[in-house]
């Protein structure tokens, strides 16, 4: 989900991500951004590489319609899409990146890959044991039984363990 930590540099890049989603090519866009825009920025320390003009240069290479990308990316709808993500994450006090929720378990910051795999495996075992099909698991077990706002370590009441 969009968590814009550097709005001056990448707000539009996030909105263009929304626009790419409208073309069914969000993953292509995301990969393209890291490979092209971010790499160029990293090598040249040039902030403009993260902006719309640079994005529109490589966008066709990953199958995006650049004209549509620009129009959608600058629309209020995509601006709102990014804000919605940030509002949702804000409910859980997410204020930085990277941050992950693995079947609802929060992981703040980077952790070793092995630890990441371990959590996924644990969650998979729980999900398999539940007998709930994957198509409804998140809705039923996470949305249905989890907490819908931040809950601190200090708070005594615990939700049902997954």
């Amino acid at each position, binding site marked *: 989900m969009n968590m814009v930590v550097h709005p001056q540099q990448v707000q539009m890049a996030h909105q263009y991500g929304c626009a790419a989603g409208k073309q069914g*090519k*969000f993953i292509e866009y995301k990969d393209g951004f890291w490979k092209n825009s971010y790499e160029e920025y990293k090598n040249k320390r040039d902030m403009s590489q993260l902006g719309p003009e640079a994005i529109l240069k490589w966008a066709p290479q990953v199958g995006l319609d650049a004209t549509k990308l620009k129009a959608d990316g600058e629309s209020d709808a995509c601006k709102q899409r990014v804000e919605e*993500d940030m509002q949702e994450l804000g409910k859980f*006090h997410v204020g930085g990146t990277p941050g992950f929720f693995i079947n*609802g378990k929060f992981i703040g910051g980077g952790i070793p890959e092995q630890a990441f795999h371990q959590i996924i495996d644990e969650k998979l075992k729980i999900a398999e044991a539940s007998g709930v099909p*994957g198509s409804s698991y998140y809705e039923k077990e996470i949305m249905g*039984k989890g907490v819908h706002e931040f*809950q*601190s370590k200090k708070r005594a009441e615990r939700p049902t*363990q997954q």
Partner: protein
Amino acid sequence: MSRSAVLAALVAVACTKPQAPGTTPTSNSSSPPPSGDLAARLERLEEFNKKHAEAIEFLQRVYDQQKQAADDQDANEPDPAAIFAVDITKPVAAGQAEGPTNALVTIVEAWDFG
């Protein structure tokens, strides 16, 4: 231990029955010996308490500060046992997701392009 609790303990010691003649005193090495009349003993105990009051207050302040810092940290730290129900309906509908829709494990990533 609070200052008042220390004082109460010391007063309790001062009010104990005087040692019977011929018996061996069993006083604590850090406490004043129980001799003299009650007023004199109380005065000594008050002096004893006064002497250590600063140290006790200092320890109390350090304890309070450290407890407050630990409480603040716990208040800001997500409950590791909690299952956080992040609504992913809109990003999924907007095509900002990857992988099969029937996956048993869903990873929600908060990411930034910067």
